[in-house]
């Protein structure tokens, strides 16, 4: 016993300059952005991990949207004759596709993010919102190469960018970032409890593809449904797509002013801002629900 006492006296005294606090971060999305270095590592890991052991690597992120583009361009454009109805149809489709792809990617990979990172979620004390947010940022990263192709296509068809281009891009991406993260949060945790949600995501993705003015134009919705177009615009993804088309497609048409008059909603910017606000509120709500149930995640994984 004297041994122990002597040994104890021998030990250094360590003064810890920190308060006694719960060991887990509890600020939700705020603590995610407080730990940006960790977030960056996770995003980089996700980008590398997605194409690990693949020969073509990042090239796949071009192939997927490109293949979809060619299907729509050929089937809808040539076979169904959309080329005649919509000016510069390829750019119209592609600018919509970028937004839709950003959303479905965020939604899909966000939903799988907690289950897919089981080994980390179960062992490490980090804000669990990290994973859906990282999934969103990875999808945002993939918007870049696609947008690059789009810009080239625009320039090739005579493009005049304006101030609306900048606002359109920012607003559209903002809407999808908020909406995608909100849904990714809820579905990621739901997927932990019932894997059914992971399967449901693909189906929702199908609806999204046809629920936005991508392969058809907003002008057509307006012509067919008249005042019901309002309800169509209640869909924030449709707003984001329109904003992105405002940014790219409008400037590439023959007479942009005329295109805005006939092919865009009257209150494009107002609707866009409202959609952004609504998506932000949704994000806050989803975060609150997430915080409520995330306690049960480790035992279910």
């Amino acid at each position, binding site marked *: 016993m004297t041994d*122990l006492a002597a040994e*104890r006296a*021998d*030990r*250094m*005294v*360590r*003064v*810890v300059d*920190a*308060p*006694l*606090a*719960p*060991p*887990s*971060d509890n600020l939700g999305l705020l603590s995610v952005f407080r*730990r940006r*270095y*960790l977030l960056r*590592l*996770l995003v980089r*890991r996700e980008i*590398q*991990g997605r194409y*690990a052991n693949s020969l073509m690597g990042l090239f796949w992120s071009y192939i997927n949207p490109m293949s979809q583009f060619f299907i729509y361009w050929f089937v809808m454009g040539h076979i169904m004759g959309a080329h005649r109805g919509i000016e510069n149809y390829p750019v119209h489709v592609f600018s919509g596709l970028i937004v839709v792809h950003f959303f479905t990617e965020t939604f899909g990979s966000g939903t799988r993010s907690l289950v897919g*990172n089981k*080994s*980390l979620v*179960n*062992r*490490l*004390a*980090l804000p669990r919102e990290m994973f859906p947010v990282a999934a969103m940022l990875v999808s945002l990263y993939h918007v870049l190469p696609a947008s690059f192709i789009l810009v080239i296509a625009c320039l090739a068809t005579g493009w005049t960018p304006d101030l609306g281009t900048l606002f359109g891009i920012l607003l559209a991406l903002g809407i999808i970032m908020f909406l995608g993260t909100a849904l990714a949060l809820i579905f990621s945790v739901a997927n932990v409890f019932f894997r059914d949600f992971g399967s449901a995501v693909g189906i929702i993705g199908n609806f999204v593809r046809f629920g936005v003015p991508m392969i058809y134009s907003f002008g057509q919705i307006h012509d067919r449904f008249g005042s019901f177009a309002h309800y169509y615009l209640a869909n924030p993804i449709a707003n984001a797509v329109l904003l992105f088309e405002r940014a790219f497609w409008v400037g590439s048409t023959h007479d942009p002013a005329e295109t805005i008059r006939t092919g865009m909603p009257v209150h494009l910017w107002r609707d866009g801002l409202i959609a952004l606000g609504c998506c932000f509120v949704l994000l806050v709500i989803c975060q609150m629900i997430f915080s409520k149930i995330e*306690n*049960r995640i*480790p*035992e279910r994984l």
Partner: protein
Amino acid sequence: MAESIRVEHATKNFTLRYHRTFKQMTVAMLKGQDVSDRFTAVDDVSFSVEQGESIGLMGLNGSGKSTLLKMINGVMRPDSGRVLTRGRIAGLIATGAGFHPQLTGRENIYLNAAVMGLSQRETEKIFDDVVEFADIGRFLDAPVNTYSSGMGSRLGFSVAVHIDSDIFLADEVLAVGDKPFKRKCLERMEEIRKSGRTIFYVSHAAASVKRMCDRVLVLEKGKLAFDGDVDAGIKFLKYGPDDDEDEPDELDMDDSELGADI
């Protein structure tokens, strides 16, 4: 001395679900069977640890040791009661570190360190020591899922001990790994103890607890059954009197000291 860990009436329940699909659940409900059941893994546990103490947490399998450790580490939150800690926590839970199987050892070191709150520069500073201690050689740049179980836990342990934490958690760390490595680990933990870091050590090996710890906590079915002196704690835990001959205790000091825990 300051308090390092305070656990106040911490309780953690798990829900056991018997049936996974709607069909199974409906059938079970019609038959009047339970669809789910509650299981209390940690039941109203309270204790306090001073900075620099080293605690041996003992108990049978399934007594709630790992759950308690997860709550201290922050992976889980108690359903009721509170768990408070002071300062940075590093350590291992249930033999493996939180490694991502597809990432290389190198990337996992950075990720692990970042989770424990290290910046890139701080990680770079300890990186070489971590690699040297883990001794995984060429596998450093191979994905972690190609590692043997011993290599994985060696790397995890190495990261945990090299991070300058205030609290060190070790759950069955010595269960895997060969003898030389176990010896290295014990030496390292001795150093950690001397540096005044709080140690929370989960083990079944009486001898290594005796060597490492100043105080023993024993969990029994989620309840704190014993809190006090090491020798008394080990005696308390004798796993029933008829197990005596299986106890390697003093007879084979070397092996049990190194932690023949599984």
